[in-house]
């Protein structure tokens, strides 16, 4: 079985995520929907793992590998704010590192979406893999929720107490979905729902930064996928199993149904 000598990033090429117009269109993990953006640290430029720099390189551009014609690359032109490439993830310092997504997707009203993230949070402070551009310190946090509860802070009511964690200092798989009725649901390690809410805001650039949601992410981001639709359970399971196969450190996950 072929491995990462070509475009792939460390998993067998037949185990890469495939979708329409993507780097792969057939594989053992085929999603029927093309993401708006797909950032995969193991294919840093979004084209081929063979182009990856050496570990420890500061990252000015994380290339989108989704195959969309619009430029959704994530960029940081300021040297002192660039995250560091570490073969399978980007390391964000929690102080000032982050990337801007070009042409940042947002919400103009009523849209459904799906946001999937594999990340590792160092310590117990802010968890902020994806956030709004321009940045704001508010509750419009795609991977946090509002209403007075800061979910990803130590000491708050947390998923770790529900048996799906811990979610600090370990590799985690997050899914956030929203339907066209503004119903939002948060999941951890597959179909472990830990929060639902109604979210009807109109916000430009809501999915426009990596490593900052008004607060700086301290830790690793391995992979981020954003879709402008609510994925079916079948597609969610394709991606869930793709990620579990790719990242041996992920906890086991529960199938969506």
């Amino acid at each position, binding site marked *: 079985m072929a491995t990462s000598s070509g475009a792939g990033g460390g998993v067998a090429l037949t185990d890469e995520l495939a979708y329409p117009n993507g780097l792969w269109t057939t594989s053992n993990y085929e999603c029927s929907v093309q993401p708006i953006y797909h950032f995969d640290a193991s294919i840093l430029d979004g084209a081929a793992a063979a182009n990856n720099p050496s570990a*420890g*390189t*500061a990252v*000015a*551009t994380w290339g989108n590998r989704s195959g969309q014609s619009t430029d959704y690359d994530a*960029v*940081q*032109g*300021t*040297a*002192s*704010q*660039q995250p*560091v490439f570490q073969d399978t993830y980007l390391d964000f*310092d929690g*102080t*000032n590192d982050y990337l801007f997504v070009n042409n940042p997707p947002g919400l103009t009203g009523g849209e459904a979406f799906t946001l999937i993230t594999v990340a590792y949070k160092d310590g117990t402070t*802010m968890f902020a893999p994806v956030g709004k551009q321009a940045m704001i*310190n*508010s*509750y419009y*946090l795609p991977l*946090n929720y*509002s209403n*007075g509860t*800061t979910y990803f*802070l130590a000491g708050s009511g947390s998923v770790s107490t529900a048996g799906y964690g811990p979610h600090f200092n370990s590799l985690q798989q997050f899914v956030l979905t929203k339907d066209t009725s503004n119903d939002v649901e948060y999941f951890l390690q597959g179909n472990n729902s830990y929060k639902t809410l109604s979210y009807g805001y109109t916000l430009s650039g809501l999915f426009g930064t990596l490593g900052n*949601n*008004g*607060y700086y992410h301290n830790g690793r981001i391995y992979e981020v996928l954003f879709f402008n639709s609510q994925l079916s359970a079948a597609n969610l399971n394709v991606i869930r199993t793709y990620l579990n196969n790719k990242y041996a450190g992920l906890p086991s996950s529960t199938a969506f149904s």
Partner: protein
Amino acid sequence: MKYRLYSSRSGWASRNNSLESHLGIPDGNGTLHYAKISEVENSENADFGKYIMPVMTQGKWKCDDQFPSSELVELDPDWNPIEPPE
């Protein structure tokens, strides 16, 4: 990362320019600047009003050797304290 504080905006900008020259920025690969200016905004902090220069201590943009070590300080979270999101 270490930090160097400047009393004036012009002093900060001059140092940023010299660091960019030293590091070869812009580099033609997407890196356009060394740092962005920020200010100590906490009026109760002793460094209120000073301008903060991040100083990289490792990696491609390492430049702490361009400063006397006695001038460098650690990050003070009280410069611009953050509140948890509501």
